[in-house]
């Protein structure tokens, strides 16, 4: 019934990476979410990463139909979902086949032996059964006939058909893992009670199976109980677990409330950005106006209209959608309207790898429009700080009267992490440039001397009637003015306005070392991977390796060049073929910027980073 192929010493671990894999229908996302939420409530730091197949429902048992959910839990700060696994829970052969590569040698696999039948083995393209052919000898394999055990557990529950019974085997696996890691089952049982309020037989069955798995592991004491992950030392406060896309949506909710404006979202669904729309449409109670448009162009067009009319206007999309919005974004730019464009990056080019992560839209964000049309570009770096950068994007747009592009990516957008809830009271103030009542000689293009933000005159306000548009405009009245000097002047003002945002953003800081041999530079969603790797290399005794991670890209923080000068080597790490590094090259002369690039639709792995760092400092 249970085989342990390899005996290992129980270890005391600071952090553990677990991946649940199975068929799309096996409920792996739910299992993973339950485990991570429970761990977070227990006080662990967590980071998660779901991995869906790009098909909606691929044929059962097929290799491309495998759905996975990875959780990283720690008693120390964890900043990525992790790359190498400590535990792989594989509900079928296809899941094992496609995920084994990530498991650390010697570490644990839990499999449902019932699923390792001839049909499934064939679908997973196994010639022989891996549970029997010694190909797993380097791992600790825990074989459990979960399906049978689940059926057994449920044989007395009324009102369940066969499908419902086999579907709940994921709870058996979860129960086992809860016991292994000393987690309480209560959170999940509560969840059943809420979710199946009207279907008591499902509450009963799921609870039964969860308990069965838990007690199965406990009773047989087959699993060393040494993995006690104690709570992580996180700043005190009230927390919740949040997904990046939800955090983004909530950041805008907060910004709307803080600025006293109504929130408008114009969007067209696209993976992996759609969840922001899904989240926004829920919040009609806050008066959120979420408009699902006919395409990306209408999405941004409606947002431009809403911005003109005085709303906090947002449009959300991903790579190909941003390409479509370029022309309209140029219009918002020349009209100097506040607008936030969220681009959740995915693997490109073209349709590319729509469900994978990448950082390859940076240049597009900078330059994907005709003419000289600079906008503010910022990037979030963790699921939780999507909240802050969404808030900040709105604040910058409103205070500087310009479009802002907020870049996130599939990795942080779909990942989740504990978020120390920021209440309204803690959030910074947001000013805006609205002219409330007309005064003599009011002009739409008169500017704030510091920010260069223009006046925002909103339809409905008597006396501020004015016309703006896409033609070059007079520097005061906003009327059409195509005079040569006016055009040069306006082009420079628009550039200067974005440049001056430097005065309103934090300086860039280094972590681990403030000067030395090597500065590791990253931006956006790679924060977690890079931070862990630099931390580890420092723990390993390499003392002069610093880390600087950029959230502000256009403009760059003021002190960037000074910082770079303090290091002998600079290594720019990106999930693309080298885009941020080129922006640095444009801006800072005389540095030799080294590159580390990965273009696989995957986050950085810890080892590949460590290897690279060590190569450069040895």
């Amino acid at each position: 019934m249970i085989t342990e192929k390899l005996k290992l010493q129980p270890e005391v671990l600071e952090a553990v990476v677990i991946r649940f894999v199975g068929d799309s229908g096996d409920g792996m996302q739910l299992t993973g979410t339950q485990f991570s939420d429970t761990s977070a409530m227990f006080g662990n730091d967590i980071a998660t990463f779901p991995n869906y197949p790009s098909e909606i429902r691929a044929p059962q048992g097929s290799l491309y139909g495998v759905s996975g959910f990875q959780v990283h839990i720690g008693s120390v700060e964890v900043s990525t979902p992790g790359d190498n696994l400590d535990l792989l829970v594989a509900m079928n052969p296809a899941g094992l086949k496609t995920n084994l590569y990530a498991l650390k040698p010697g570490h644990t696999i839990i499999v449902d032996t019932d699923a390792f039948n001839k049909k499934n083995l064939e679908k997973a393209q196994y010639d022989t059964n891996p549970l029997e052919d010694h190909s797993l000898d380097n791992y600790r394999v825990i074989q459990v006939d979960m399906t049978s055990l689940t059926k057994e557990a449920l044989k007395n529950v009324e009102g369940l058909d066969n499908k419902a019974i086999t579907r709940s085997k994921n709870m058996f696996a979860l129960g086992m893992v809860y016991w292994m890691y000393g987690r309480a089952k209560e959170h999940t049982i509560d969840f059943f009670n809420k979710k199946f309020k009207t279907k008591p037989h499902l509450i009963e069955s799921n609870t039964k199976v969860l308990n069965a798995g838990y007690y199965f592991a406990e009773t047989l004491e087959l699993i060393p109980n040494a993995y006690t992950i104690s709570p992580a030392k996180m700043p005190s406060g009230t927390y919740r677990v949040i997904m990046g896309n939800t955090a983004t949506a909530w950041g805008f909710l907060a910004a709307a409330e803080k600025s006293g404006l109504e929130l408008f979202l114009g969007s067209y669904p696209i993976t992996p950005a759609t969840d922001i729309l899904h989240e926004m449409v829920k919040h009609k109670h806050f008066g959120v106006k979420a408009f699902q448009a006919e395409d990306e162009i209408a999405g941004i067009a409606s947002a431009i209209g809403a911005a003109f009319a005085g709303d906090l206007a947002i449009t959300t999309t991903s790579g190909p959608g941003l390409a479509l919005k370029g022309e309209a974004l140029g219009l918002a730019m020349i009209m100097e309207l506040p607008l936030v464009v969220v681009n959740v990056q995915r693997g490109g080019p073209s349709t590319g790898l729509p469900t994978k992560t990448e950082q390859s839209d940076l240049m597009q964000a900078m330059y994907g429009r005709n003419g000289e049309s600079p906008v503010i570009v910022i990037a979030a770096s963790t699921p939780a700080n999507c909240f802050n950068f969404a808030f900040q994007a709105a604040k910058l747009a409103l205070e500087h009267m310009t479009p802002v592009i907020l870049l996130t990516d599939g990795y942080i957008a779909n990942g989740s992490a504990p978020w120390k809830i920021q209440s309204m009271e803690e959030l910074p103030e947001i000013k805006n440039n609205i002219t409330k009542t007309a005064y003599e000689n009011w002009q739409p293009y008169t500017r704030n001397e510091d920010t260069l933000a223009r006046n925002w005159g909103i339809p409905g306000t008597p006396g501020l009637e004015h016309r703006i548009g896409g033609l070059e405009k007079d520097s005061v009245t906003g009327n059409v003015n195509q005079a040569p000097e006016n055009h040069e002047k306006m082009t420079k003002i628009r550039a200067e306005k974005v440049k001056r945002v430097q005065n309103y953003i934090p300086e860039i800081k280094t972590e681990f070392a403030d000067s030395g041999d090597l500065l590791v530079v990253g931006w956006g969603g790679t924060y977690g991977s890079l931070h862990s790797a630099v931390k580890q290399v420092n723990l390993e005794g390499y003392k002069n390796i610093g880390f600087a991670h950029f959230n502000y890209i256009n403009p760059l923080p003021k002190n960037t060049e000074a910082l770079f000068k303090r290091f002998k080597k600079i290594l720019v790490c990106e999930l693309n073929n080298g885009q941020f590094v080129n922006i640095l090259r444009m801006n800072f002369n005389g540095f030799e910027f080294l590159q580390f690039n990965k273009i696989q639709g995957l986050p950085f792995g810890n080892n590949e980073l460590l290897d690279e760092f060590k190569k450069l400092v040895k």
Partner: protein
Amino acid sequence: MEAIVEKKYTYKDFESDQEVRWCPGCDDYVILRSMQKALPEMGVKKEEVVFVSGIGCSSRFPYYMNTYGMHSIHGRAPGIASGIKLANPKLSVWVMTGDGDAMAIGGNHFIHVLRRNIDLNIVLFNNEIYGLTKGQFSPTSVVGQKTKSSPYGNTQPPFNPGELALGANARFFARIGGNVPKDISQILVEAHKFKGTSLIEVLQNCVIFNDGCYNNITNKDVKEDKQIYLEHGKPMIFGKNRDKGLILNKLKLEVVTIGENGITEADILVHNAKEKDPTMHQMLVRLEYPVATGIIRSFDDVTLEEREDALTKQVKANSKFTKTNDLFFSGEIYMVN
């Protein structure tokens, strides 16, 4: 728009300080003045009116109106206007567009705005040509038309804007010549009153690149014989002598002469613009002789804003969230000390 207008406007209140730059003789001047004269009739405050346009000769319109306005990018005005209206349903929002702007590059937004029935007004300057880019055929240019981009004659059959609009479920459609300022003004006023998206096609003469394309429909001397000006509830009679009328022969509209073959006024169809079923309206927009003008369809339906508003009220009433803090601290939260 139930705004109380304190001051009685005249058309001059709606003239902006920008010099009008259309070619002398262009019908666009007529439409501009008709609009400036219609606005005081509407009883709407100047600051609550927004004109949005795309790109084209016609799209320069907002510059000349002393209201809020945006001369946006080619084809996207319906999207922008939708955003404006959804953001602030109190505004009176007008889309000023050309046949190219609305039906070439802007075709998608055009059909979707009609489908959604947001309370916007769209004035379509149909001159069957791209004016601003100096004379290429447009999606309403006729087959065989020689233009800069069809020197041997256009090979692409045109849209009939009314047919396309009704196919997209337009609730209000009117058509009018570009040379009858009073009629234009009156239709603009009606469009304003109509709740939902209203579309007005103006048969606008471009004196430079397509001069006279409507001569045999709109010219003073043929107008009454070649057009039928439809009014809700009135019989479909036309002609200089008001002796021609339309009757239904199976599924075809037929022109008859009152007084001939025993036809009397009672036999003539009566126009029902407010009918939900668009069959008759579609037949009318397709009619080649006489060409139907006036308000062809004006069917009252729920607007998108109304639906949204009702839902929002309902959700608000049922929700325990009024501030974001309520949301942020709801559900599964936990403390770390």
